[in-house]
């Protein structure tokens, strides 16, 4: 366990915690990007170059921006008066803690049989590309269809229904 891993893990977890704890929604979104960046660095630390850069491109470049836009469009940057946590926050926290306990327990239980350091896998981007259009071509096509339908679906969901809206305004 290298020192780099501990730093990155701390950064990621701190980012995640901040994203879930901060009061200001935009700050939460920015903390989320920190968590994303930390995860990307963890990926790089795991020698998954492609996945790491894809993580940055997709999550920081697109998802984070999307979240930020959504926050601004829903006026979510103003902290509400009634508090940011739901009424049953204690139950939620307890359950999350239970989940962590179970997961952690499971990991520690099986820590003995988990593999130790292995050789760095020599995987080039070209191999990933060949696998994507070779063995994994069907999932790739399905993801392409999914993305297209998600694009159309998101547009249809979020589209401004002009007629109805104008009527409301006139009232």
């Amino acid at each position, binding site marked *: *366990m290298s020192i780099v*891993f501990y730093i990155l*893990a701390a950064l990621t*977890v701190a980012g*995640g*915690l901040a*994203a*879930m704890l901060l009061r200001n*929604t935009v700050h939460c979104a920015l903390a*989320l990007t920190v968590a994303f960046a930390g*995860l990307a660095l963890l*990926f790089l630390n*795991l*020698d*998954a170059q*492609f*996945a790491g850069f894809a993580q940055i491109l997709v999550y920081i470049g*697109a*998802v984070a921006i*999307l*979240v930020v836009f959504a*926050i601004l*469009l*829903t*006026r*979510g940057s103003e902290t509400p008066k*009634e*508090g940011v*946590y*739901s009424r049953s*926050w204690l*139950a939620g*926290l307890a*359950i*999350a*803690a239970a*989940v962590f306990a179970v*997961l*952690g327990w499971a*990991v*520690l239980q099986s*820590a003995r049989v*988990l*593999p*130790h*350091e*292995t050789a760095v*896998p020599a*995987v080039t981007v070209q*191999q990933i590309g060949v*696998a*994507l259009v070779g063995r*994994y071509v069907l999932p790739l096509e399905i993801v392409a269809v999914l*993305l297209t339908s*998600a*694009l159309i*679906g*998101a547009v249809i*969901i*979020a589209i401004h229904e002009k007629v109805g809206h104008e009527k409301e305004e006139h009232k």
Partner: protein
Amino acid sequence: MTPLAGYLLVAALLFSIGLAGALTRRNAILVLIGIELMLNAANLNLIAFWRYGPHPEALTGMMFAIFSIAVAAAEAAVGLGLVIQIHRHAKTTDLDQMNRMKG
């Protein structure tokens, strides 16, 4: 502790943080953020298992993670679109106030 166990623990922690956020926050967008965090924790697991698994050259975990990233992007787009539409409709993104199934 083996490196894999370390990564798995970090992923578990991140997952729990995401879950806690999704369970406790009022704002729908932040619930979505929590879910994104959970997804990312799963990705970290996938990549870690790929790296320390017996057959990294098969690329299975890596592919899983890449597809998961793509699907998560779609999920975020649709989810946020829904949130925006809900906001337009109910003038709020507070999940505690959105407990009616009738529009």
